[in-house]
């Protein structure tokens, strides 16, 4: 049972505030991913929990007890570093045994536990080798083994697979997930890769410039981004965002983007849901799969021209010119023959997001 809680955590590097009033509750066995661009404070947050950075204000609690004044060694937390940080002068066996040697365990106990962890991670045949003789994936397995062997209260991982090549990264991602399900320890994982975050996390914590932007399950974060930053950070290809003008028509509501001649049709319910923001500065957000296109004209579809087609194998991403704006749509592969084709497009109201341009906040419209 390990719960971790951050209460009003603040951290300064000189005059620069890198963590701004961070509040977060992590429950037992939860896999939390801190997601953000480099320099957003996610790694600093992780290091503060590990005890490698001090915090200037606030509390860090493990199982309800404040630990921010404890040394890293006394927090009973394990960490996997991006660089793996395997001790080069020690064999794999010694590396894994190293955290146990800090405890008062007997030699035979240590031996037993090292071998059992090595078996779990399928690195038993590597125990005699030096880290420099290992491949990237094996180094990472050893680093995880060293973290697991002590059965710590929590596992912290700082971009543990960021240094691996793409194929290996995918493999290790699955392995980390499998391991988490098997071992079930509270885990905090830092990454800038949103695919990694989506595939691993129970909940994703998105940070930007030291401020927590949104906490939620991968689905929540993807389908209901709290603000423009989250909307554009999560999801690949990136969500389309355009300034939008909302106007009432006889039977429906028209949403115009990029000063186009005509607007996209939305149900009347939009007006009430916008709750008075209709006349204000609005931005429409729509993911590429929410832009529907067809070859022949139909009710509610606007004529548009294709600009660039990016074939991505299982689907294509097509840039459509709408007024002065580009909307990216996701289509079946080969649906559009090439640039300059005339097609008809509409926006799926159910997948549309509306944001207040000034604050960037989502207006929470769900149609």
């Amino acid at each position, binding site marked *: 049972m390990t719960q971790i809680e951050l209460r009003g955590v603040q951290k300064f590097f000189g005059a620069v505030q890198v963590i701004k009033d961070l509040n977060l509750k992590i429950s037992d066995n939860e896999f939390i991913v801190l997601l953000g661009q480099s320099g957003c404070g996610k790694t600093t947050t992780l290091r503060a929990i590990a005890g*490698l950075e001090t915090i200037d204000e606030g509390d860090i609690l493990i199982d309800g007890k404040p630990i921010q004044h404890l*040394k890293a060694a006394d927090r009973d937390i394990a960490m996997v*570093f991006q660089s793996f940080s395997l001790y080069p*002068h020690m064999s794999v066996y010694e590396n894994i045994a190293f*955290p146990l040697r800090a405890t008062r365990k007997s030699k035979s106990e240590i031996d037993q536990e090292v071998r059992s962890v090595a078996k779990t991670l399928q690195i038993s045949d590597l125990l005699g080798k030096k880290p*420099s003789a290992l491949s990237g994936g094996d*180094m990472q397995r050893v680093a995880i083994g060293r973290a697991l062997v002590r059965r710590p209260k929590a596992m912290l991982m700082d971009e543990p697979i960021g240094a691996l090549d793409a194929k290996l990264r995918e493999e290790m991602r699955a392995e980390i997930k499998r391991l988490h399900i098997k071992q079930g320890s509270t885990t905090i994982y830092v990454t800038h890769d949103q695919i990694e975050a989506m595939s691993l996390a129970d909940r994703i914590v998105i940070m930007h410039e030291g401020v927590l932007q949104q906490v939620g399950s991968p689905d929540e974060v993807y389908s209901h981004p709290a603000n423009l930053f989250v909307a554009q950070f999560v999801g690949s290809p990136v969500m389309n965002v355009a300034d939008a003008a909302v106007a009432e028509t006889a039977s429906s509501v028209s949403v115009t983007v990029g000063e186009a001649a005509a607007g996209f049709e939305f149900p009347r319910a939009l007006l009430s849901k916008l709750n008075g923001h209709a006349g204000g500065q609005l931005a429409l957000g729509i993911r590429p799969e929410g832009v529907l296109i067809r070859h022949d004209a139909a009710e509610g579809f606007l004529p548009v021209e294709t600009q660039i087609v990016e074939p991505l194998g299982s689907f294509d991403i097509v840039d459509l010119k709408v007024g002065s704006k580009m909307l990216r749509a996701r289509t079946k592969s080969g649906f559009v023959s090439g640039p300059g084709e005339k097609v008809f497009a509409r926006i799926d109201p159910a997948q549309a997001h509306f944001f207040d341009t000034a604050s960037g906040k989502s207006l929470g419209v769900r149609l």
Partner: protein
Amino acid sequence: MAAVRTSSEIGFNRVAIIAVLVVTIIFLAPIYWIASTAFKPRNLATTIPPTVVFQPEISPFVKLFTKRSQMRSPPSPEEYAAAPWWERVVFDGGEKIVRDGKGQVQWSGYPSRFLNSLIIAITSTVLAVGMGTFTAYGFSRFKVKGEADLLFFILSTRMLPPVVVAIPMFLMYRAVGLNDSHVGLIILYTAFNLSFSVWLMKGFMDEIPKEYEEAALVDGYTRMEAFFKIVLPEAATGIAATAVFCFITAWNEYAFALIMTNRRAQTAPPFIPSQVGSGLPDWTVIAAGTFLFLLPVAIFTFLLRNHLLRGMSFGAIRK
């Protein structure tokens, strides 16, 4: 790069090999000269042109370690026959070994000077490298106020020729009774090597990723434990290199040893040339003393050669 070497590359390689051979010969020539003179008969040591082929002798080493005096007449045949082989080689040179009233052979000053050199050089090296390693770690890992100024200040002790301060140092040492003492020279050489050691070790410490210690801290160790268990083994290469340089400096130091010591704590460098003056210069004895004096540095460097060459942390961390 092409896998097949072109003729110009092969030609360049040959030139490079010849250049390396020439440089090696230039560097080894003085060593050969000393070593060969140390085994020459006295009358062949100063011939012009130099004698290259000769029957090697051990007599210079016997003379180096014993007190001798000139003989007016050669020893009687009985005396010669009764003498051990090492005394005969001295008789052959027209000298005899000085013995005390009980007939015990009197040692020359060389063994005690050699021992002094060992004690002083080893102790000052251990101190300079030890303190330098800790200091460098502090500068490398912690925010030190005025770090650049302090490091400059440390280096500034080497910005003047050391002999410039020899006279004031001599007066100070005499005032506090440190002259002609082991402690005095140890302090002097430690102080002299410390700045070098700090700077060199800082370079090595900066190279060791701090993630290693952080991993150890998270793994349940204190910073001190992390330093001894992780940083020190990683810094072994740097420590070895620094130690070799400090040892060579302390071992070879001449000027201060000459000024600060005369008997009790005198090291080998000022002692060896002083042998020129007693009687006729015997270059073979001086060469023998120099030859033995070269050995500790050679052995020390040889023992540490693996550390000097090995880049231990190579490839174990992913950047």
